[in-house]
């Protein structure tokens, strides 16, 4: 009887390598698939949260109910703030400047104050606020959790493009330069 030929060690190594390669490719595909699915879920969650945010109805300081999606079609910067939040107040002069400079090109800031109407009205007039701010945003803030505001903290800023898609979010004070870098490309016709 002839014994089967002893496989050549080099061939064995190469077959091992092939298997390792296949296993590696399978693992990468699996991880990529999981990541893609997670990415998809996140995108879907974000889209849902963005739609919910746009549908939010809140009173302005004078008590008139306003819907956020009345500003749809603009590059929307939604900023959660409060008068009792010092870092929130400190970033607002920058927003006022940006609103004045780029409002004509379709930039629209909207504040959502987690606060009472009186201090909001007083602060808005002291500061010369040139964009609308709505009141009583705690439920809306809970919504912001879905958009990445894990701690549901303030200030939290969301940038939406003209199609109502969330482009970026930020917890903490916004640097004007960072805001420009995100918003300016969206303002181009």
């Amino acid at each position, binding site marked *: 009887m002839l014994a089967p030929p002893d496989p050549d060690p080099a061939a064995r190594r190469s077959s091992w390598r092939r298997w390792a390669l296949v296993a590696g490719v399978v693992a990468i595909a699996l991880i990529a698939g999981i990541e893609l699915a997670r*990415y998809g879920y*996140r*995108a879907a969650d*974000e889209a849902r949260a963005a739609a919910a945010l746009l549908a939010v109805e809140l009173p302005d300081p004078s008590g008139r109910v306003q819907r956020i999606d009345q500003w749809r079609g603009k590059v929307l910067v939604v900023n959660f703030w*409060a*008068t*009792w*939040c*010092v*870092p*929130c*107040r400190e970033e607002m002069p920058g927003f006022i400047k940006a609103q004045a400079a780029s409002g004509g090109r379709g930039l629209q800031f909207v504040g959502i104050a*987690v606060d009472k109407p009186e*201090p909001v009205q007083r*602060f808005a007039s*002291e500061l010369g606020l040139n964009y609308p701010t709505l009141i009583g945003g*705690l439920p809306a*803030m809970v919504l912001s959790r879905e*958009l*990445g505001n*894990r*701690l*549901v*903290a*303030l*200030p939290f800023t969301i940038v939406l*493009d003209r199609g109502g*898609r*969330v*482009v*970026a*979010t*930020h*917890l*903490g*004070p916004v*640097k004007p330069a*960072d805001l420009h*870098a*995100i918003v300016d*490309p*969206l303002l181009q016709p």
Partner: protein
Amino acid sequence: MLLAGAWTVAAPPARGAGLPAAEPKLLAPEEAFRFSARALDAHTLEVRFDIADGYYLYRDKLGFEADAALGTPALPEALRKHDAFFGEVLTYRGRLVVRVPVPSGVAGQSLALKAASQGCADAGVCYPPSLQQVKVALPAAGAGAGPLVEPERKKGWFN
């Protein structure tokens, strides 16, 4: 500022925007302002907030209520800070201990204490008002202090 530049770019990423920045290291409010309470004796509650370094609580946002009418809390002296909008603002840092008188009728019973608080981090964020609750067993008249009780933490699968 610690948080500057920590933008999170939504999925799918915006034109020209970079990768999502690492999330700033901030404590959840219940970690930043650890609340606990105990009965000192039959007619006094001791409420504590262990405030993490770099965080502070507002004095005028503190509030205590229970299923029995509480006396006026004895708030310790606070830090004074000038605020451009509100004028003088009083805050607490470190360990805040507040004594709250309890009506005599509840000695030997259990009291559901609710504490409202609100504060900020020096890193540049503030937390919305929070309401935490603990059940404190009051000793019978003449007995000593009870153990410190912390609220139960809700732990999900992913946090």
